[in-house]
């Protein structure tokens, strides 16, 4: 059952066509990779999916249960509310805020109490705050960050900051999770750990995951299907072994990396 259907997605900046006629079809529960050389347009695709840019043309449809939601043209917060969450390539944590707050804020869209209740600390406030706190701690426990919940996010080591990025996205209760280079800057041990974590998250949170990555070991190991982007166009789409053997892909960028992965 399709969860995300992207058709003929196109975006130009001035004279430069960053994304051209991209078609992506993701089934519910899949773990799909999006790879391509630097500048191929992968993050632009993410930005289009999450509403940071509006596409010039094309459709993005998210299927949640029985509902089909058209995402193109929606603002980022509306897209998040529809069930699509993302992490950022360059980590955009709320640096001065605590780890706990970073998670709690991401749960805000589902908070039940009104502005008035928030200002007067009525009963609904007290109850919801407890729920928020408990749920945030549960999430943090998964990544063993609960004991650091009052730390400022900026004080976390890099690897834990990346984990917090992911926790934050999970906290928004998505059906589809977009991970933008989650392993960037990680050493092989951390990457291996992350690979397991992503697989675990997918299973335990019943998620569909679309992942941009440069680390071929991670991509080939964990992704069930891979889309390859080059100069803004999809040049190949298939299973890891199909991609490894695809001549166009090899030409475009993989080269020896694939054989050694």
């Amino acid at each position, binding site marked *: 059952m399709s969860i995300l259907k992207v058709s003929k997605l196109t975006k130009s900046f001035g004279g430069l066509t960053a994304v051209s006629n991209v078609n992506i079809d993701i089934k519910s529960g899949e773990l799909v990779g999006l790879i391509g050389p630097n500048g191929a347009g992968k993050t632009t695709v993410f930005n289009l999916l999450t509403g940071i840019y509006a596409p010039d043309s094309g459709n993005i449809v998210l299927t949640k249960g029985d509902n089909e939601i058209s995402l193109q043209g929606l603002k980022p917060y509306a897209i998040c509310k529809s069930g699509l*969450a993302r992490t*950022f390539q360059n980590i*955009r944590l709320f640096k*001065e*805020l605590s780890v706990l707050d970073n998670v*709690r*804020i991401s749960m*805000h869209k589902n908070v039940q109490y009104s502005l008035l209740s928030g200002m007067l600390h009525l009963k609904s406030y007290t109850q919801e*705050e407890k729920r928020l706190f408990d749920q945030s701690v549960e999430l943090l426990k998964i990544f063993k960050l609960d004991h650091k919940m009052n730390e400022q996010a900026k004080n976390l080591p890099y690897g834990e900051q990346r984990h917090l990025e992911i926790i*934050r996205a999970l906290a928004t209760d998505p059906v589809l999770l977009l991970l933008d280079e989650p392993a960037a800057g990680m050493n092989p041990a951390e990457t291996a750990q992350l690979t397991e974590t992503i697989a675990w998250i997918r299973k335990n949170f019943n998620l569909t995951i679309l992942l941009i990555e440069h680390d071929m070991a991670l991509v080939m190991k964990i992704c069930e299907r891979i889309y390859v982007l080059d100069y803004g166009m999809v040049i190949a789409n298939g299973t890891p072994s199909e991609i490894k053997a695809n001549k166009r892909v090899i030409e475009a960028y993989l080269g020896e990396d694939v054989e050694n992965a």
Partner: protein
Amino acid sequence: MKNEIKMNRIKKLVALLLAFGVVQLLVSVGILNDYIMATVSTIGINIILAVSLNLITGFTGQFSLGHAGFMSIGAYTCAIITLRNPTTSGFVAGVFAGALMAALVGFVVGLPTLRLRGDYLAIATLGMAEIIRIVFLNLDITNGAAGLSNIPEFTNWMWLFIFTSGTVLIVTNFINSSHGRACISIREDEIAADAMGINSTRYKVTAFVIGAFFAGIAGALYASRFYVLKPDAFGFLKSIDILVIVVLGGLGSISGSIIAAILLAIITSYLQSFPEIRMVIYSVTLIVIMLFRPQGLMGSEELSKSMFKKWGRLLNRKDGGVA
């Protein structure tokens, strides 16, 4: 956990009643004379102004240079109502009408302008406050440049205390709620906040409107205390006055705003006969704080028991070192 919350609330209530009672006693007995009470009123009004501006600029990160405009709307609205209805109920109606008018203008102005970033927003809010001032300068109902006078005085210690502590409590509560945290996340990283499902425009406007509301209350209290209103009293300089309090106290610290309001009111009362020197000191204060301690007195932290403990330990260190 529930009992702890209840205990905290009772403690807060008792502290408030005590604070109110002590001062009320001193006033009734005559120890606190008119001059001191005028300063106390200024402090209270400035606390409300600073806390409400801090909500907009310190917590939500939206640089507003037109806060005095909201104050003037509250002041004139309340004055106009109490001049026609000089009763306590008229006063209370005037305060809330003033606050609501200010909030309304805040909404109308905020909606289109809060899309702007940093410096642009600052100039837009400055322009908005100037337009308000010029409008008041030219309306009949506000009596133009001559302003309004003989405004019935209803702002006594009780009302001042109620509104000031009310403002502080409500804004503090708001900051500690999920809605408040949403506002803070916008200050931290607006794009990330949007990506996490927070409608940043909506919350920027919300903070702006709430800030305007309380500035309106402050204006109304001002009108009903100092009984004379002129449009020029609410110009750019007044907005700067409020900004200095917020910056000195610390953008993002409620207790900082309170401390700074008290400090600056005391300093101002000494410099009353030297307005230019006061402005020179204010301007140098701004520059020095920004160059050497941009987080102000409190940074974005609040006064807390752990802070006193830390200072106590620092002062008691036998080796005289600073941690």
